[in-house]
């Protein structure tokens, strides 16, 4: 390639050469790809244990008073409260911390930590509380009897119980009286190859305090950041190996 030739035709030729090389790299044959897309999964394939979805919360970037992640979660799943904070469902909450010695203030979101060893799954008497192959901890509401053992077992108070009859549920987020629920890591979006609603809202708000990705994929931005910086688990002493990690805490 002649680098001195800067005519439009040459630029176009260069583009096509590079583009075709890129296409050849991505698609050797239909269905066979050298470089798999990081997030997308074929629709009729089950979730796989080769992936483990996780979240990194950068506490230094999280802004006190901002609740973009909370309201995005409420909108996404139709968590319309009854103005009763004691009992309304809460999948994600903002927690403000103050160091009494230094008066240093922190603000961070807390939600289901999607543990590798989830206590909620251990105590569930019906098997409704389960961990999906790709690490997302969920409630199968078809088998949930509403005993709320999981709510007591969870060290993060991540689960809510639905006390009242509901109407107007979203198609992708079935919810009903007498069952327990919590953050699903927006499993319906993840299955489409998208990020959770809270992550998108945080990025849209310009804070970029939440990073979503595959912990097992070394090329994933999340795994890279986890490898490069010091992060913490909440209640690491319990050895639950959470998929949600905090930086700057």
């Amino acid at each position: 390639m002649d680098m001195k030739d800067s005519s439009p035709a040459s630029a176009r030729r260069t583009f096509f050469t590079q583009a075709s090389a890129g296409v050849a790299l991505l698609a050797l044959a239909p269905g066979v790809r050298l470089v798999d897309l990081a997030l997308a999964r074929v629709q009729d394939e089950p979730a796989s244990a080769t992936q483990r979805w996780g979240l990194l919360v950068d506490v230094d970037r999280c802004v006190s008073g901002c609740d973009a992640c909370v309201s995005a979660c409420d909108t996404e799943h139709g968590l319309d409260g009854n103005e009763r904070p004691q009992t309304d469902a809460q999948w994600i909450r903002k927690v403000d911390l103050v160091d009494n010695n230094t008066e240093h203030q922190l603000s961070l979101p807390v939600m289901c930590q999607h543990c590798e060893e989830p206590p909620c799954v251990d105590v569930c008497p019906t098997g409704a509380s389960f961990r999906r192959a790709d690490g997302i901890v969920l409630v199968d509401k078809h088998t949930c009897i509403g005993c709320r053992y999981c709510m007591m077992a969870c060290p993060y108070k991540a689960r809510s119980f639905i006390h009242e009859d509901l109407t107007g549920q979203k198609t992708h987020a079935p919810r009903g009286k007498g069952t327990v629920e919590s953050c699903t890591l927006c499993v319906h979006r993840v299955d489409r190859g998208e990020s959770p609603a809270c992550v998108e809202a945080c990025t849209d708000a310009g804070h970029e305090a939440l990073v979503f990705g595959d912990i097992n994929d070394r090329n994933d931005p999340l795994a890279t950041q986890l490898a490069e910086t010091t992060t913490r688990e909440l209640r690491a002493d319990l050895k639950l190996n959470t998929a949600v990690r905090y930086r700057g805490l």
Partner: protein
Amino acid sequence: MIWSGLFEHWSKRRSCAIRTGVITVGLVAGMALSGAYAQVSQPVFPSARGEQCVEPVDVMRRDHFEFLKHQRDKTVHEGIRTPRHSLAGCIDCHADKDAQGRFVPVNAKGQFCQSCHVYAAVKIDCFSCHAARPSERVSQSP
């Protein structure tokens, strides 16, 4: 002897007549009842959008809940969200619109799910949790 024979003959005829009467009354009552059954009309519901159901109609009538249950486990536990045999897929095709062009819940009176389940006297519990109207994606399409 003659008199006693005559009496016996008469009493036999009488019991026979009573029997015939009972049978007749029974038949009439039965016909009336069967007439009443015939008056229970077949369920009437709005026709679906789309050309064809995912399975033959007679198969769906008998086994739709088996398909739904199988699909629900695949969706919840494995994340397989294919529309075939999914409840959302059923609703997308079978929900009807009212005069204002808004979707009517499939469990409302006279609608697809409700009309048949009332006829079969089977209570459906799906819609205490699941949306009974099509997803936003379908609602927004013309």
